[in-house]
């Protein structure tokens, strides 16, 4: 489905302070033509949702590197629905769980929790950009500063 804009809310959820991937993604997504609203590290579910509503964002990108991601992300889709942005894209990525677990099972759990895309550690920004373009209905076009912006 085509989205009305390409604004993204980017942040690291919970008590997590890992800022490197956040800063890299911010730079890469901006360079790719997205409008990035970076709420930084240690962001609550409410901060993500408020920022998304304020900026009329098309997607929320949740990072979690410290292993508590499963606890921190639980209920985020429900809160989005309550807030009236139930159809917003939800992406999650990083070291989402404690311990070494099969990524397929992690992905399945997060999809059950209402996330549209789930990424393992070390995912390149290109992959996220490609998925965003596809999910936002831009296809393979690189013309991200066109009429959709």
């Amino acid at each position, binding site marked *: 489905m085509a989205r009305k804009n390409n604004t993204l809310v980017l942040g*690291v959820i919970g008590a*997590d302070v890992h800022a490197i991937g956040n800063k*890299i993604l911010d730079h890469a997504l901006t360079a790719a033509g997205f409008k990035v609203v970076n709420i930084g590290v240690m962001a609550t579910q409410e901060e993500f949702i408020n920022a998304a509503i304020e900026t009329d964002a098309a997607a929320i990108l949740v990072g979690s590197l410290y292993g508590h991601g499963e606890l921190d992300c639980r209920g985020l889709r429900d809160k989005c629905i309550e807030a009236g942005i139930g159809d917003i894209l939800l992406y999650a990525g990083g070291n989402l769980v404690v311990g070494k677990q099969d990524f397929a099972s992690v992905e399945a759990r997060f999809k059950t929790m209402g996330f549209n895309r789930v990424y393992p550690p070390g995912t390149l920004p290109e992959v996220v950009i490609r998925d965003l373009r596809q999910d936002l209905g831009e296809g393979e076009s690189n013309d991200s500063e066109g009429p959709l912006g």
Partner: protein
Amino acid sequence: MELVNKKLDLEQFWAERQEVLQSWPTGRGVDLEEAIAYHKQLPASKVMAKKLAQGKREGITFAQPRAGVALLHEHIELLRYLQDEGGADFLPTTIDSYTRQNRYKEAETGIEESRAAGRSMLNGFPAVNYGVDACRKVVEAVNVPVQVRHGTPDARLLAEITLAGGFTDFEGGGISYNIPYSKDMPLEKSIRYWQYVDRLVGYYEENGVSINREPFGPLTGTLVPPSISHAVAIIEALLAAEQGVMNLTLGYGQCGNLYQDVAAIRTLAELAEEYLNRFGYSGRQITTVFHQWMGGFPQDESKAFGVISWGAVTAALARVNKVIVKTPHEAMGIPTREANAAGLKATKQVLNMLKDQSLPLTSELQLEMEMIRKETRAILDKTLELGEGDWAVGAVRAFKAGVIDVPFAPSRHNLGKILPARDNQGAVRFLDFGQLPFDAEIRAFHQEKIAERGRKENRQPSFQMVIDDIYAIGKGMLVGRPR
């Protein structure tokens, strides 16, 4: 409360203590005089500062893992396994992220969820919730010194409980546990909180108990130039010494270039002693700790062993006093105990094989050392000038001005203007100096090093180099060459 670098007045300290100990029920379990007596009956083999002193005399590089889980009995089992199977010379107790943010209620929930789930739902051991007696169970269950490792800007209660609990080493500092770990915490506050921690350690020292303190060296752990982390470590050493800390282990995180890393370790203790002596803090025991690669790890375990072993080789050739060990599960999150022991065993094998070898002082090594000295002194001297002679005030103003600037830090109180990138040999240089107080000679050195890489790669130096460097190690490379 105005921040100054001055030993806390004892009465003021006692008053503050009452507040700290009342901030969570387990605080009532701390009895300082009883704790001092408890420490005095610990054998020397369980006291970090003493074992470090022995290792420094004998030229040993010790190995220490990271480890901490939510449930007490599982945590003890884990540490015993790392000691017996992994051969850990020192043991850690890594604290969970809720405790690091003083969110003890959420830590309590984490303990309960862990009990229900039958596996740890926290990324560390919530020592404050457990209290003094549980900490002592940990200390008594093992045969080697145990260190508290965390990332807590306000670690006053954590220090009270874990030190009374018999731990003999406490990691962190008012800068190194704020800037890389916090978003909003003002430096004035965290430095002040850590004055309390150091004053507490000083009190133990004044009463005949050796507690080692370890500023967190790697900071954000990714492309941190040595002079940045050296400046922070030395300022924290000066602040700690003022509060009466006598034993300090200063840290540095592996950048990956052998000569730069060896130069960093060799200059770290030397510069710290220079500044401590110059500012009147003589007779301190200074040791060094080297952190194996803190950046992204390859997912493949065999490749991870390569990264780990390369860190071990560097540690051995630098003749560092201690090395903090990574695990082959690094890329996947928190490791199993077997993976943790595996990292230790690979590391100790390399340390043993190389224990009779070191890197001779060549002109290449001397140049690296000299550049680190010049840069570190430039940052420190400007910091002191900004602080009008006060290191605490100077540190706050230096971060505000970008005179100290940590790459990729989450804190709002870090200027975030510098950009590091690797040179053509993989050493970490400055692509953008931000507001660092470097002279023309230092700038020319870095610019030429980065330009050399640009020529080799046939591209202009840019932020893309930084991105490429960060992703490179996951693809097995140190320098992120153009794709």
